[in-house]
């Protein structure tokens, strides 16, 4: 079932993306002086792999869990919560380089809790209530962000940055250590999501069938929701909201490799990371001016999405 050949192509592309990202940049590349690639490009590449991979994986997981092909990792309101958190951080105090990551993470976690409680109706979480609660909170937090932007006395480029997504966060030593810690915590969570592959397959049938086969859909929904929220909060707090990767990547993978989540989940991670690295390569080789990643992902993503829509209907 698992064709090694199909993996092969993706892995080659992934390695190519890493090599290109490592060797291209304004200061060029020379094997004699690797300090700039190592100090400046490598952290960016690792952030890119983490962000793109998590977006692809969580997109695939949530599309499988909610049985809704239009869900993306931000549907649950996490990105707007992160924007709101960062806004509060910028207003109430100065925590230096930690302000944006820490506060947007708190904002996401707060949103997750609110969405979770809104979605719980008589002790049960349904897929529809989860999506609805997420969308409602997105609207609320987007409006609050707008409101605070108006009340704050300066335009806040940090907020626009969070809403459009970039890998260009400037790492200081402390910030890099924080990122590595989060990265290490995230790995078992990524593996946990992958472990749910068969349950996600079964969920493509009737929920009752899944239940009768021993899949505890309530617990599964809750755990996946919490795990994906943590991962997305971690990503958003460093890169801001990068659109379309989480939406499109699982679709591409399913088109090529079929719907089996055993393949869809890891390949979505791989393709998400690859696409984000290539996107970032474009975004920063147009330097000296950096483009927000969502500009590029949307330019590629929207036509693809229109194609999907026309094909499905």
């Amino acid at each position, binding site marked *: 079932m698992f064709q090694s050949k199909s993996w092969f192509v993706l892995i080659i592309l992934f390695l190519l993306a890493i090599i290109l990202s490592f060797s291209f*940049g304004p200061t060029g590349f020379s094997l004699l002086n690797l*300090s*700039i690639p190592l100090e400046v490009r490598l952290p960016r590449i690792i952030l890119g792999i983490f962000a793109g991979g998590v977006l692809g994986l969580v997109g695939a997981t949530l599309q499988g869990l909610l049985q809704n092909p239009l869900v993306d990792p931000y549907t649950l309101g996490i990105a707007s919560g992160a924007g709101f958190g960062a806004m509060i951080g910028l207003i109430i105090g100065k925590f230096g380089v930690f302000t944006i990551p820490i506060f947007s993470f708190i904002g996401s976690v707060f949103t997750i809790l609110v969405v979770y409680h809104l979605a719980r109706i008589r002790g049960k979480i349904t897929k529809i209530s989860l999506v609805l609660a997420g969308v409602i909170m997105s609207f609320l937090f987007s409006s609050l962000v707008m409101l605070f932007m108006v009340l704050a*006395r300066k335009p806040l480029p940090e907020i626009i940055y969070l809403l459009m997504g970039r890998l260009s966060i*400037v*790492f*200081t030593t402390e910030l890099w250590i924080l990122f590595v810690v989060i990265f290490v915590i995230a790995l078992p969570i990524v593996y946990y999501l992958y472990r749910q592959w068969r349950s996600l397959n079964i969920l493509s049938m009737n929920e009752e069938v899944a239940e009768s086969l021993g899949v505890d859909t309530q617990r599964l929904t809750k755990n996946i929701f919490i795990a994906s929220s943590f991962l997305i909060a971690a990503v958003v707090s460093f890169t801001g909201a990068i659109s379309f990767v989480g939406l499109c990547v699982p679709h591409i993978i399913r088109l090529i490799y079929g719907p089996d989540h055993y393949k869809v989940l890891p390949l979505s991670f791989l393709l998400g990371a690859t696409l984000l690295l290539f996107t970032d390569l474009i975004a920063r080789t147009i*330097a000296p*001016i*950096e483009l927000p990643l969502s500009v590029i992902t949307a330019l590629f993503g929207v036509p693809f999405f229109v194609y999907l829509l026309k094909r499905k209907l």
Partner: protein
Amino acid sequence: MTKFKNWFVYIWLSIFFIAGFSLCAKSKKETIRQRIVSLVPSVTEIIFALGKDSLLVGNTIYCDYPEAAKHIYKVGDFSNPSLEKILRRKPSLVFATLPEQRNIIEQLKKHKIPVYVSQPKSVDSILSEIIEIGKLINANDTAKALVNFLKSKLDEIAQRNPNFIDSPRVYIEISATPLMTVGSLSYINDLIRYAGAKNIFGDINQEYIVTNSEELIKRNPDMILILHPSVNKSQIRKRLGWSQMYAVKKGQIYDNLNPDYFFRPGPRFIYGVEDLANIVHGIWTKRK
């Protein structure tokens, strides 16, 4: 009886006051006096500098300099002033700027209210705007005097400049996430030039520029100026890869400038030029 008397006194007094107020209002209308609303903090500063602050009937909550500007009627904030509040002040002239205030400018024009758009792109245009504002608010002579003063200051700074073979190359950071700086279309670029330095992004024809660490390492500034509160000198040193930059190696990082001197194209720009020139001369002391 006493009750009736009281009533009579009240009514009589009220009539007296109403008549008095309406007469007062009438007499005010007769003396034609400008009523100015300024939506731009730098223009507010110019009007104060020209001694015509008594004409100001409204400004924004961003207009916080000088101290007295804080106590003028607020018509909203910089990016979203309220049309209704502006109209209520019955202005004869409104100062606004682009592109942030495009909407309100169009609406004010619909209400036939004269709008002056302040949008300086260089030091020269700041100076010519001061002259024009002087004409508009009947402070011609003061404006000329102010401009002459500013010009003499600029000359003085220029003369103090030693003859650099190469002017020091400056990176001005206006935001950390994302890394943002200014290009040639910003008057800040001009301020740097007048201070005897060179903006490392002066070759890019944009007002604001989002950049990244590696581009900065490539452009390798001689000094770094931080114009935002979210990072300080020591954090800049800890940024990965930045130790490659000349400015970081030599400790040429400055984080205690007053951003308003740079972000407000009003008379105080001269302090910005002066502070920057002082840094360039290596005789930087914090302005009290």
